[in-house]
């Protein structure tokens, strides 16, 4: 009887290993990818590096907090010329606050507060499942290939092609496409890192774009950790004080 049970379990496991890709739920996989990249509510530090064709670089350091599915706030810590600039995203609403100069202004996902290849949608990214629906899921070369379609026309990229590591269930590469099918940029996820408290994700995202030949931008993550903050933090009124969250 025990032998029969073992044989049955072995049969089930071997069948599971050979499951066709359609048996994996694409939406569930995308949710898992989102949670593996970060807790739903978290804080983190990031360094953005814009690298020019001649090798020269511009670096920016940001402190970022996110809450729930659609709220993100960031503040620049360096360089001195940018320090104190803060951005807020609530769904598709985005604002930029420049200290000393004026009140927060609305900005768009296609602009970039840092220049370089990353745009505001990349820098203030929401969970993928919030902005994209799964169109198809394939399995190729030991990875899942998710084809995603923007849920609304307001989303920065019309389609994403996301290659997901089957073992780690995190992206290794995302191709960002316009509605015409034109490739806008490619994101490469690298340096799998354990940030503690169960947060393991790639610490580096590189990007290049055929629209910016020779240029490269890099986003490096540090101190990614779960943190739950009140909703009031993610408001225009609080935006000039985002850096106080670090105290």
């Amino acid at each position, binding site marked *: 009887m025990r032998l029969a049970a073992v044989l049955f379990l072995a049969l089930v496991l071997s069948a599971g290993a050979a499951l066709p890709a359609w048996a994996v739920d694409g939406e569930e996989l995308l949710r898992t990818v989102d949670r593996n990249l970060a807790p739903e509510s978290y804080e983190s530090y990031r360094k953005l590096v814009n690298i020019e064709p001649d090798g020269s670089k511009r670096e920016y350091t940001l402190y970022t907090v996110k809450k729930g599915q659609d709220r993100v706030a960031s503040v620049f810590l360096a360089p001195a010329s940018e320090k104190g600039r803060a951005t807020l995203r609530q769904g598709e609403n985005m604002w930029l606050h420049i200290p000393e100069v004026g009140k927060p202004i609305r900005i768009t996902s296609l602009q970039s507060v840092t220049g370089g290849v990353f745009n505001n949608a990349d820098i203030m990214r929401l969970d993928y499942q919030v902005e994209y629906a799964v169109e198809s899921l394939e399995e190729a070369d030991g990875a899942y290939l998710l084809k995603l379609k923007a849920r609304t026309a307001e989303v920065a990229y019309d389609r994403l092609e996301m290659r997901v590591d089957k073992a780690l269930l995190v992206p290794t590469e995302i191709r960002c496409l316009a509605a015409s099918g034109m490739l806008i940029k490619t994101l490469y996820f690298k340096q799998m890192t354990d940030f503690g408290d169960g947060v393991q994700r790639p610490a580096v995202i590189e990007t290049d774009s055929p629209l910016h030949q020779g240029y490269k931008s890099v986003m490096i993550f540090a101190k990614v950790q779960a943190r739950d903050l009140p909703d009031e933090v993610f*408001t225009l009124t609080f935006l000039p004080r985002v850096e106080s969250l670090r105290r």
Partner: protein
Amino acid sequence: MRYVPASALAALAVLLLCAALALHPVPARAGGDAGYDLDFEIPEAEEPRGLGFKGEIELRATIRPLDEDSLLYKQRYYQDMGDSVQSDFLLRLKPELSYALDAVSLYARPRLDLDWSADKRAGGEPDEPSEEFMDDERHWGSSVVLEEGFASWQPTHALTLEAGKKVLKWGKGYAWNPVAFVSRLKDIDDPDQTREGYVMAYADAIRSFDGPLTTLALTPVLVPVGTSVNGDLAPGDSVLYGAKAYFLLYDTDIDLLFMNGEAFDTRLGLDFSTNLSSNFEVHGEAALRRGFDQQRIDDEGNVSSRTYDAFSYLLGLRYLSSTDTTLLLEYYHNDEGYSPEEMREYFTLIENGYNQYLDTGNDRLIKRSNLVASDYNPSGAGRDYLYLRLSRPEPWDILYLTPAVTCIANLGDASFTVNPEVSYLARQDLTLRALFVIPFGPAGSEFSEKIQDAKIQLSMTYTF
């Protein structure tokens, strides 16, 4: 042939030399095979409390070829026609100091200026209160101004109390803010310049909700007024009180505002801003000033006043094109301003006064016009304006270069200025900027009668 002072040329040469040195390419740091450095240094990440310091140094040269035929030139220099080109050089230090400890923080931003002017009379009135030095010098001047300095207490994330000197940034407009009831006017040629605040106490209380109303925030404000503090806001000693209620409702920012006080005209205001699409934003402001007292002068020099409720408003849009060009367009109705006919009367007075002075040596009419010059002469003293700005970062793949052109038009008299500018981030801590202001318009119009034929401003700003 216009005469340019040798000292001005020398200072300009120094500025250009500094700019050339700044543009000298800085070799990139070696970054390994990946092309970047994975060493992650986070400023003050481990200990964000304590003292913070940053700042900027600006070197600015301004050259103004003067229009000797303009009426404002004649008004100012009727007794002593000066150089046909004026130049000013400014060295400005603006440090920012902060100190944070738990829920309490302190912030100060003083401004220290050292300037050389071909004609110190040509400069605007200094901000108050400020400490002036070198008053007796003919060309040199210096001043120290505390632009902002305040203490904050944040007992919870939803409540902040602040007291001190602060710039209250009310309104959604870029060039004008009719609802900025207790703020100094923006420099219309350069609205992004920092300004000096007023002494006040205020609170921010925030509540968030689920549903169409996402955010509600209340900002009550108290502004003391006296001879030694905020004296230009109202006569006598009193306390102004006001409030702003902010709503994020159906993805639209909405503010309701008011300000009142003894000897202060009651102000009521509304502003809004929303995105019609991801690359198209619209905004607006409306302000009512009860019992506004406007000083007028006729072409014979008789000053009168009229009291009325002034209703000013602004409508604007910001559009980002597929080529990354940003278009900003604003229409402003300034109900506290002067109609084209009233401006013409003022200009006629100056012209008559100048002719009278030439004929008889009597400058009574010119002096009469000077009584109201601070009301009539500033840019934006008219009624209806249009502001158009186009900017595009990094055109033709030239990194860190941002050209822009701005047109400011007085719709009442068809005069306007065209302001091309270009800024270049030579290094991450060094910005170079050139701004040109070129006025156009028929005789007797606001921008054609300005003192200068043009303004050329070159600046270099180093941040640390």
